[in-house]
């Protein structure tokens, strides 16, 4: 076979090894000497067999290796053609007033910030027109349970129309009455809530009212005892990074299975009350990786109660599981109006939750039509032109490009522009450091890492590695 190389990139990963990745996302590690041989095309039979087995070489255009390679690229890019995910904001009103609120909520008694009947009716028509038989619906807010009636109507409608739907309600769980429980009891309904730490921290950062915070934990216990801990997932928000380990311990004690470690998001109220969140990515990274090691060690020691860290799992799956193209935070191309919509309290359509947040504070209007009049095609297309990393001059030279994503909204929210050199952006730095961490762990040969890599990929924590023969020596 006449050997030709597919497009690839490389990156130094530790003192001994370089990471080499192909455009299709296959990868291996080798030392500097072998990398030089690869760069100079000085490939002997041994190396050639290895490269063929990893799909880095092909014989001729259109041969089996070529078609395979194309398939993998396609698999990493393909987006569904129908809307499979709706994020609905039935009300922007909220009964709490957290300082880091990203969505600029309004007071519980304010009028004019809820879905009305016309929006609901048009939503049903929209789903019939744009979705197939299976969808996911997430309720955000404000506090969505303030309009439990809307949530119930939507669930009932889906059942009636024989649409296979899964529901998630993001709630502060302060109020929990019979009406809310009736909805939560439905096996298709999952709850997502915020737990920043044990009572004192939770109270300080959120309700600032000991009674309401106690009520929160009472409700949490009630639901997890009656319906199982799998019914609820929680995530913390940190602006005091020393809290991280105690909060992780608290999550283990509650039996929670996942955690999502992220700093205060630079949106909404946080922009005024937590201005440090704009540029704190480096400090955060230090704390984040220390926390990750802490979780990994605990998982490895406990062997019976595991916590999956969501951000790590998301990026990890982007590496190993071609086709993990569902997370708006990290995918490429990251098109709006293809497989998901955010529908705000006023019926306006947005490409992502962050987009609605920055539109609300008046930074830029990223709405793309509304549920009554339909999507605005031109706006969507203009936005989408910038959501492809394959044509970005920085991304094309990055070894992690096949796994990474692109997010104009994050750039706009921080820098008011989308054309900064990528390595100067928070998005890029965040993901590069996550991918470097992932690949360092892969090549480390450390059982704690293997245990957690496998666990985060399959939900089964074992020492069987998720990879084989990845080092060329």
């Amino acid at each position, binding site marked *: 076979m006449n050997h030709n190389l597919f497009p690839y990139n490389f990156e130094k990963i530790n003192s001994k090894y370089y990471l080499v990745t192909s455009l299709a996302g*296959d990868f291996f590690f080798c030392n500097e000497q072998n990398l030089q041989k690869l760069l100079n095309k000085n490939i002997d039979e041994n190396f050639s067999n290895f490269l063929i*087995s*990893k*799909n880095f070489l092909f014989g001729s255009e259109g*041969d*089996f*290796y070529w*078609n*395979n390679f194309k*398939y*993998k690229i396609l*698999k990493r890019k393909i987006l569904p053609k129908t809307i499979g995910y709706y994020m609905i904001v039935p009300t922007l009103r909220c009964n709490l007033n957290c300082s880091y609120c990203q969505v600029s909520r309004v007071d519980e008694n304010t009028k004019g910030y809820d879905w009305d009947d016309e929006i609901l009716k048009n939503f049903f028509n929209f789903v019939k027109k744009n979705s197939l038989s299976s969808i996911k619906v997430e309720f955000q807010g404000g506090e969505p349970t303030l309009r439990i009636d809307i949530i119930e109507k939507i669930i009932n409608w889906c059942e009636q129309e024989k649409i296979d739907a899964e529901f998630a309600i993001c709630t502060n769980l302060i109020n929990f009455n019979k009406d809310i429980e009736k909805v939560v009891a439905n096996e298709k309904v999952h709850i997502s809530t915020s737990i920043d730490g044990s009572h004192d921290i939770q109270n300080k950062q959120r309700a600032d009212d000991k009674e309401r915070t106690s009520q929160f934990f009472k409700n949490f216990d009630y639901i997890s005892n009656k319906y199982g801990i799998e019914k609820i997932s929680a995530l913390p928000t940190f602006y005091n990074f020393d809290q991280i380990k105690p909060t992780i311990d608290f999550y283990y004690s509650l039996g929670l299975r996942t955690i999502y470690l992220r700093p205060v998001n630079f949106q909404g109220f946080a922009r005024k009350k937590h201005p440090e969140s704009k540029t704190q990515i480096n400090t955060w990274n230090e704390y984040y990786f220390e926390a990750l090691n802490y979780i990994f060690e605990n998982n490895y020691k406990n062997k019976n109660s595991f916590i999956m860290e969501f951000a790590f799992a998301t990026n990890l799956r982007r590496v*190993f*599981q*071609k*086709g*993990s193209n569902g997370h708006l935070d990290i995918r490429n191309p990251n098109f709006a109006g293809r497989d998901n919509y955010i529908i705000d309290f006023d019926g306006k359509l947005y490409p992502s939750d962050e987009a609605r947040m920055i539109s609300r504070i008046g930074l830029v209007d990223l709405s793309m039509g509304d549920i009554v009049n339909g999507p605005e095609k031109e706006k969507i297309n203009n936005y989408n032109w910038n959501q492809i990393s394959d044509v970005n001059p920085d991304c094309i030279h990055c070894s992690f490009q096949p796994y990474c994503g692109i997010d104009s909204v994050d750039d706009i929210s921080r820098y008011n522009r989308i054309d900064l050199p990528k390595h100067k952006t928070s998005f890029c730095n965040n993901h590069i450091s996550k991918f470097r961490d992932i690949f360092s762990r892969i090549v480390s040969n450390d059982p704690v890492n293997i245990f957690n*890599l*496998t666990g985060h*990929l*399959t939900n*089964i924590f*074992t020492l*069987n*590695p*998720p*990879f*084989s*023969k990845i080092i060329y020596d």
Partner: protein
Amino acid sequence: MIRLTIDAKYSFEIKKSFAAKIVDIKNYNSKEISNVSIIKNEKKLKKLISYFGEIVITDESADFEIDEVLLFYKDAKKIRRFFRPRANANAILLTEQCDQRCIMCSQPPKNKRYDDFPLFNEAILLCPKNAVLTITGGEPTLLIEDLLNFLIFANEKRPDIFFHILSNGQHFTKEHLNQLSIISESVLWGIPLYSHDSKEHDNIVSKDGAYERLFISFDLLLQAGSRVELRTVLMRQNIKSLVNLAELINHQLPWIEIWALMQMEYIGYAKMNWHKIFYDNSEDFSFLQNSIIYSLSNRINLYLYNFPLCTVPKKFRSIAKPSISDWKKKFIDKCEGCKKTNICAGFFEWHKNEIGYKNIGKEYL
């Protein structure tokens, strides 16, 4: 065990083979009987009324269903059951001829063919909506031209019908690309690959060059957008290198729809070679675990076929399918009182406890 050919007595002479389906007598008027319908007479069906005359079933155990499709052969006494709506699998045995001699073959090659495509064309039109049919052999693609024509016919007239075709993948060529592409949505090709290593695979199928020829077919199937179920029967010869096969699939066959790891059937060549080849996963699951974890991590769609649930660790039971066709499936004495029989693959009709799994039974669940 359910028999698929039934003895019968006819009140008429079958001059030409025909296909017919069973309909409910309550909904039919005798004047409306067409030559394609057979009316179910009584609950415990012993008499069928057809356009041509009466058929008395002499097989005591036969229990026909409404919407079942039957084949009547010229000059033959037996009725062939083509499609049974309640069955968990409906298979058409096309031929017993094969150009490979796999060491664990459950259907050793014979020089006999059972194809009658004009008759199958008739029968396919009578099948219920969304019917799934398996086509097996021997090697069905020894008749590849006729087979593809049949599949194209079915795709055109009955696009709702789905075919699962077991083939050794040795006979696809460039000339078939167009047809393969037309039928790509409605056919799942079940193709065996026993090892990442060409010599190991060739030895198991007893044919030099089989591996290389198979990969030429894989290329064609990929180009045609075909749906492939890769099948790997586990045996002592390939269990240790299983994770290498998983790696090959990940890098070079990521487009396959299913990877089925299969336990052996104690019949045919497998029975002959049993003590040299059978791998008892109830004694040691570690090699399997390695490959399963690797596959799940890389999102290879992996299933275990023909594994009794008690021989599979709890965390993997969700991928063990009740795969054994009902007509050749049984449970054994150790299964008495087990509550999982409705989701367990069970055992093959010809399974013998003394040569089978060491650690089976409720206590391992």
